[in-house]
């Protein structure tokens, strides 16, 4: 629970990426993957540019890690993929059913997210793929509510503009960006009370019980249109994984 600030620190990177995506006319959903306390990979939604409905942030992040693993010397007796058991994901929006399943199949450790995804969330909003009985040896815990309002505002900002790629674009002229009203956060859709207490601390239990956010204030620095430089995150993603040897070329 003393770690909450550390988790928020990683989520800030994910939000910066989402803000960057927003300014590139993509759905503002983004993520970072963290291994041994370091950002090792990132992803942003790219469904418009790629002409594909499945190029979600999580997949792009996994692909970066996977190509890094290809260039590593495997430790004898340990499968490459086992490294995911020590990797956490910070994503601005709850993973969709597809990504929730992908994260499970790849064996992620934990997932931390901002807001839920009521249209196709796979960690509790629509289905609970992370806790179902398929490939259950890889079930993982998923913690919502980390900078939730900021994640929602970025999405609202995007959806006040039209998605001209849809077959029948919906006119959204009259929509305005609301920054003061938020739906309740139904924590129990995503985690049980015990897990909440263990992670956020018993002093925050009021939030769980009353379906409230942890913070009242909105961090406007995160949402600032200047806050879109992601060079540091890209640089970290280009580095080899910490503590593993690069494969010698023979």
């Amino acid at each position, binding site marked *: 629970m003393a770690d909450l600030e550390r988790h928020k620190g990683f989520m800030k990177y994910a939000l910066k990426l989402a803000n960057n995506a927003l300014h590139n006319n993509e759905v503002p959903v983004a993520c970072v993957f963290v291994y041994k306390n370091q950002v090792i990979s990132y992803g942003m939604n790219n469904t418009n540019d*790629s002409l*594909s409905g*499945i190029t979600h942030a999580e997949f792009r992040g996994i692909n970066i890690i996977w190509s890094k693993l290809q260039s590593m010397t495997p430790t004898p007796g340990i499968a490459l993929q086992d490294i995911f058991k020590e990797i956490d994901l910070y994503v601005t929006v709850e993973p969709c059913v*597809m990504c929730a*399943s992908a994260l499970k199949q790849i064996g992620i450790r934990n997932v931390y997210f901002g807001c839920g995804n009521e249209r196709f969330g*796979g960690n509790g909003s629509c*289905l609970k793929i992370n806790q*179902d009985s398929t490939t259950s040896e890889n079930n993982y815990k998923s913690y919502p509510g980390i900078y939730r309002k900021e994640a929602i505002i970025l999405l609202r900002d995007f959806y006040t503009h039209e998605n001209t790629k849809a077959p029948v674009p919906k006119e959204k002229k009259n929509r305005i960006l609301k920054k003061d009203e938020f739906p309740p956060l139904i924590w129990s859709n995503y985690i049980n009370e015990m897990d909440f207490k263990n992670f956020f601390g018993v002093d925050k239990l009021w939030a769980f019980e009353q379906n409230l956010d942890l913070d009242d204030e909105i961090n406007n620095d995160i949402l600032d249109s200047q806050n879109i430089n992601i060079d540091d995150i890209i640089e970290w993603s280009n580095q080899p994984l910490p503590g593993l040897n690069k494969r010698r070329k023979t």
Partner: protein
Amino acid sequence: MVKKINNKIKIDYENCILENSLLQIKNKKNVNNLELIEAWLIDINPIDSPKVLGLIKGLSTNDKRSLLHLKRLQRFGEQLTVILCSTDYLEESEILSSLETQSFTYNNLRTKKVPHHCPGTKELSLKWSREYWPIIWKGNPNDQILNDVKLDINIVKEHLNQIAEESNRTTGETLPIITSIVDPNTNEIVAISKDNRASHPLHHSVMRCIDAVSEKEKEKKQKNQNYDTHYLCNGFHVYTTHEPCSMCSMALIHSRISRLIYLTASPSTGALDPESGDGHTIHDHSLLNSSFEVWKWVGSDHYRLPSLKEEVNA
């Protein structure tokens, strides 16, 4: 819409099987569960009903929530109450502006919760009609769904044959899972893909096939800037050897396919058949934002496939 009696396709309404070969896979649990959606209502003068019906016709072409199972007009004293469209389709400002342009007068624009679909029995239909809004009962609505399916069984067999053959040709580490994506307007195969998880754990055949479709579109766009790209896999049909896992099933929802046909169930890991895995029926789930038809091959032509371990996510 074809009349039942004129339909050339052989339909077993009771068991939901087409042409003795394709079993409808759907969420059997929810037909008789009441779900409500919100719709816009107005009161009008009966004399204006032709004009109002004209407006409704226009609205219902773009309204994703079908309201065809509901009576549109109901008389209350001197006035008619009319359902215009769902509130998911138009917001208040939008419905107001489309009413503004009409040449009839109306009163009391409001919302009302109405049944989302017609139930499977006449008794329930009458009950929901009394409690919410009159439903038009024309028999079990699934009969109409079955009757409306457009299908050429010989074309289906061709595509199934091809993926089964490809499946039997796989060697070494490659799993015998094959998927093809077909444009039903031309019956051309847009893409056909093998499983490739030996080199990447998430490269299932369905995922690779969806990627192949978008790669093709990107190439065409690069060659010709004026090329009008197909929206994702909108309306395409998918043929696959094994019932897909939850990742692949949801990827197909995101890709907006309209139909999936598979050869073999995946009893532990499948995400479509209510009897498979966790029974998610992802293609037919009321909380997810889109849906597609699913059929499982049960015909007498037997497509033999190499064996696959039950715990594999296909």
